[in-house]
């Protein structure tokens, strides 16, 4: 049982580290959104694992459902912003979005 729980949490930490690494590595907005989805999935797996092995009942499951819902809403808005930026600037490179910098 310890091994199964630890494998799930290992997967969660792998996805979290992977999400951060993707955000650092890529320079495209869509790829950064992919990293963000991985971070949210890591959080949801952690909730579900502790729900299964420590807490029981339905609380962690409901939290994971809300995380999936927030991820869906956020992905829709971010992709709309990406399409809008591509219309005006013809680029999806993060370093070119620097109007608010100075």
């Amino acid at each position: 049982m310890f091994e199964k729980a630890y494998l799930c949490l290992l997967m969660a930490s792998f996805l979290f580290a992977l999400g951060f690494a993707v955000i650092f590595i890529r320079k495209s907005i869509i790829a950064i959104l992919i990293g963000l989805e991985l971070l949210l999935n890591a959080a949801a797996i952690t909730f579900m694992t502790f729900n299964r092995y420590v807490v029981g009942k339905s609380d962690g499951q409901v939290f994971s459902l809300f995380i999936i819902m927030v991820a869906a809403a956020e992905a829709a808005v971010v992709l709309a912003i990406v399409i809008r930026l591509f219309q005006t600037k013809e680029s999806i490179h993060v370093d070119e979005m620097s109007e608010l910098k100075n």
Partner: protein
Amino acid sequence: MLPEIVLLFSAFMVFLGGILLISTKNLMHSCIFLLMCLFGVAGVYASLGAEFLAVTQIIVYIGGIVILMLFAVMLTGGKEFISRLHKVLNLAPLMGDKSTYMKGSIVGLIIFGGLSAFFYQLLKVLPLKEQQVSDYKIIGHSLLTDNLLAFELSSFLLLGALIGAAIIAKPEKVSESKPTDI
């Protein structure tokens, strides 16, 4: 026996999909490997006894978000697209180069090591026991009683995201061409 097999298979899918996702240089392939990764996560939910969550994950992520991402990739140029400013501003390439890979892998390894050590210590302390996980009836009941406020707020959030996305992505109807300020 079956949950263990499902768990091992989905762990394989998550790890392989993650490695491939970060090593490919093509954004389209990256989205496809994200799909593989998310399918593995759905398998983890199924092996933990949360079938409803697994099905929701498949419907929302694989049926919705990844398809939306693929459309966004295709609408913004795909892999052939190369910005004309890269040469001028001396920017890093869109999918990263050696220095960003170096930074990213250092950050990732530190976070992975720290989190896995933390979870190992935590699981040693906690009293582990295979608990009963609620089925969809109890989840639906709890969404409409204990978590009613969050449920209603999430419906408002989804409505706001829908309207906001439609307004943001609406094509502008200006007649004069805007000068690019570069």
